[in-house]
Every structure is written in structure tokens, then in C-alpha cells.
């Protein structure tokens, strides 16, 4: 009993020391480094003005009422605009879009300073997204699964 306890104390300390000597760090040095998100990542949404047929399905299926059809006075066609104050990135709008006018970008690391910056009416909705970290010149890292270390982050070629 007593010896078992001592052995377990020693084992616990030895395990700690093992990791102290040979650490298994998986930290990504964000914002110096940024992970390249997986192919199908559901990030900020991009809107293709020309493909849109104004069917309104995206606004109808949006669970958070973030997507709205903006109807301009005098214009017949309403176009979708998104409100990132509410968007929950479920991707239903993209999956239901019958013309693939909506698509995911692989950018999700954004923060805003003002509330109205987060409103994206149709015109602004078409703008391209770039990751702020990459704009600052972050190294892009690919995630690799590894038996020894769990996750490894290797620079993208």
C-alpha cells in the first residue's frame, strides 16, 4: 500500500519531468503563424453578385435571421445581405443556394471594433475576405496528424 503510493508519486513526477525535458508543444504562434483551415471550412461568406437569381431561399432558411433580402426602392430584384452580428456560420444559406452564388471563405479570425462594421448589405457582401493574420504576413501552417505528437503544424509549401 505504502510502497505503491511512493511508486505512484515517483511515476507522476517522472512523467512530469519527461515532458519537461522533451516537451510536446502543439502551440500555433498566432498571429505570427496561422493555420490553413480545412477545405470545407465554413468561414465568412462570399457573395457572387452575378450568379444570384434573387430567389430568397438563403434568407428563408437562415436560422438566425442574419441573412436578409435587401429590396431597393424602384428595383425589382432583392439581393441578400448578411449581418455578422447574428450569423452563426451554420452554412445553411450556402448549402441551399441553387446557383452557388454564395460560397464559404476560409477566413474566420476577425474581430470588429464597431457594431455597424458587421453589417454587410449586398454591395459590401461581394467584397473579398482576407485573413487579418495573413495580411500581417503570418506564416501559413498546414495541420498534419501525427502518431507521436497528435497534431503537427508544418509550413505550407
Amino acid at each position, binding site marked *: 500500500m505504502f510502497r505503491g503510493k511512493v511508486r505512484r508519486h515517483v511515476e507522476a513526477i517522472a512523467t512530469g519531468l519527461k515532458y*519537461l525535458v522533451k516537451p*510536446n*508543444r502543439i502551440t500555433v504562434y498566432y498571429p505570427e503563424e496561422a493555420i490553413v483551415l480545412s477545405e470545407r471550412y465554413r468561414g465568412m461568406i462570399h457573395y457572387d453578385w452575378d450568379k444570384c437569381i434573387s430567389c430568397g431561399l438563403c434568407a428563408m432558411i437562415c436560422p438566425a435571421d442574419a441573412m436578409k433580402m435587401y429590396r431597393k426602392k424602384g428595383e425589382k430584384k432583392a439581393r441578400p445581405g448578411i449581418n455578422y452580428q447574428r450569423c452563426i456560420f451554420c452554412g445553411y444559406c450556402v448549402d441551399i443556394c441553387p446557383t452557388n452564388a454564395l460560397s464559404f471563405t476560409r477566413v474566420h479570425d476577425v474581430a470588429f471594433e464597431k457594431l455597424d462594421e458587421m453589417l454587410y448589405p449586398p454591395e459590401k457582401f461581394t467584397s473579398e475576405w482576407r485573413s487579418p493574420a495573413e495580411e500581417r504576413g503570418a506564416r501559413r501552417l498546414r495541420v498534419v496528424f501525427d502518431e507521436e505528437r497528435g497534431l503537427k503544424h508544418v509550413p505550407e509549401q
Partner: protein
Amino acid sequence: MGLVSSLVRLVLSPQFFGPIVFPGLVTVLAVLLSIIWVERKIAARVQMRVGPLYILRPLGGAIQMLADGLRFFFQEFIVPETVDRVPFLLAPVVAMSFAMLPFAFVPLAPNFKPYTVPYSMPAFLGLNTVIPLTVLAMAWGSNNKFSIQGGIREAYMTIAYEAVLFISAYSMALLYHTLDFAEMVEAQKVPGILLNPISALVFFIAMIMSAGKLPFDIVEGEQEIVAGPFTEYSGIAFGLTMGIGYVQLYGFTLAFTLMYLSGWEPLVAPLYSIYPALGGILLFVKAYLLLVFIVFLRAVYGRYRLDQALRIGWRTLFPLAIVSVFLSIALGVIGVV
């Protein structure tokens, strides 16, 4: 000219140099700043991450604690209306002062001790016993349920570890036939830890308990009582309370080194010839490594329950401490020392 030289002499005199420069105030601050960073870095390393880094990238964020300390210093200091102001404000300062005082009794080399008293070991330990009282004052002054709980825990813990700490230290005094640190070091032909390992183990655990470090950080038990007696403190006062444990621990590691790891022996003669206090560097290195090991334990252990810690104190350590006394007497009879 005369003024400058007398100033230099004053600074280099043991009475000033010991408490103020090394191992006292200045070194304490340096240790305080570095050890918390070391603790966070070690924990981070074991825990698959990096820890503080960007503040000083080339040194791995070594001045992290400077930022935290300055932030505490400049942050608003809130004195809640419900507190008892005098103990609330005074206790951290008193605690820090008493945590600093024991360094006046730490010798650095054979003939370099700030205060030449034959009882430096009991004086050192005795000064440390004031700190639990100040913690009680903080808890009482804070007038907060969590603080009072923490204060009661501190009181319980104190009676559990203090007797053990003293008895195990006195067993070494019995072994060396002296109560003075310097003479103890001289008496150690073999490091004390080999002569009386039981006493060393007991003292080691009791000093972790005393400083409230894991696995015995019961007084600050954040998962139950937020920050214990320090819950209501903000700004610089919290910075002080956070530092007390580390200062105390640093003092204890010095004492441990003197009693069990043969202090400054083997003495580095060339350094000693330049300036006697430099001989203490080896002492400091040993103590610091011990300190690093203790803060490393944070990465391995959680926290014991209060009653378990008390049981360890009374049922395991106390008999062991008594055994260590007899062991010392036996060794004395055989005539090892």
C-alpha cells in the same frame, strides 16, 4: 572621497549587504520576478504550450512578472466599504516585511553573516511564524466569507506544519550540536540530507506547506474560496500578497540548503578571495534549483484536501519528525558528526 569609500564600505558590510542586497531585498525581488516566470514557463512546457513569450522574445518573456507587477502597481486599489481598514491595509505590508526579515540571519560564507547570533536558525524560523498571523489579519479585515474561510484554513495549516518544521530543524541542530546556520554548514562533512534523510523529507514537505505551494495551496484554494484571504485585495496589495509565499519559500530553500545540502561548501575559493559574500553564489544556486523543483511540482500535483493535509502533518510528518530526532541522537551517539 572619504564619503564615497565609507558608503561603499557600508554597502559591502555584512550588516547591510546581507539583508538589502544579497540574499535580502534586491535578490528577493529578482528571485520573485524570475521564479514566477519560471513557474509559468515550466508548467507551460509540461503542458504542451509555450507560456509567456512576447514581452521579451529573445529571453522567452523573462520579464513577464515585471509587467504584471507594474500593472498591479498602477491599477486602481479598491478598498471596499465593508472592510476593517486598518488590518486590511496594514497586514500585507507587515507580512511582506516579516517575510523579508529572516534574510538577516542567513550567512553567506564562513565569516560573512549579517548578524552574529548563536541562534540564527530558530530566529529565522521564528520570524516566519509571524506571517500566518498577518494572513489571519487579512482574512479578518477583508470581512468576506471566502476570506474568513481561508483564514481558518491558514490557522489549521499553521498548527499542522509549524511544529513539524521546528522539530525537524531541531533534529539537525541536535546532530550538529549548534543552532547557528554557519556552524551547521561547517559541521557538515557529508551533506545533512544523507545523514538524516527523514528530517530532510519532513522539512521539505513542511516548508511547501508553510509557503502554500502545490500540492498544499489550500489557503488560496481557488476552486472553493476564490483566493482565500486575498480575495478582496486588488492592485499593489494583491501583488504583495501574491509575493509573500514565494519570498517565504525562497527563504526556506536557503535554510534547507544550509542545513541539508552543506550550504556554500564546496567553497569556491577564488570568488571568496575577491569578496566574501560571493562565496554565497553556490548557496544561491543550490537554493534556486530547489526552488525550481518546488515550483515544478505545480505541473504534477493538484491540491490536497484540508483534512488530508492536516492528517499528513499530524499523522505522518509529526511521527517522522520525532523519529528524525532520535535518528540524530543515535548518529550523535555513534559519533558520525
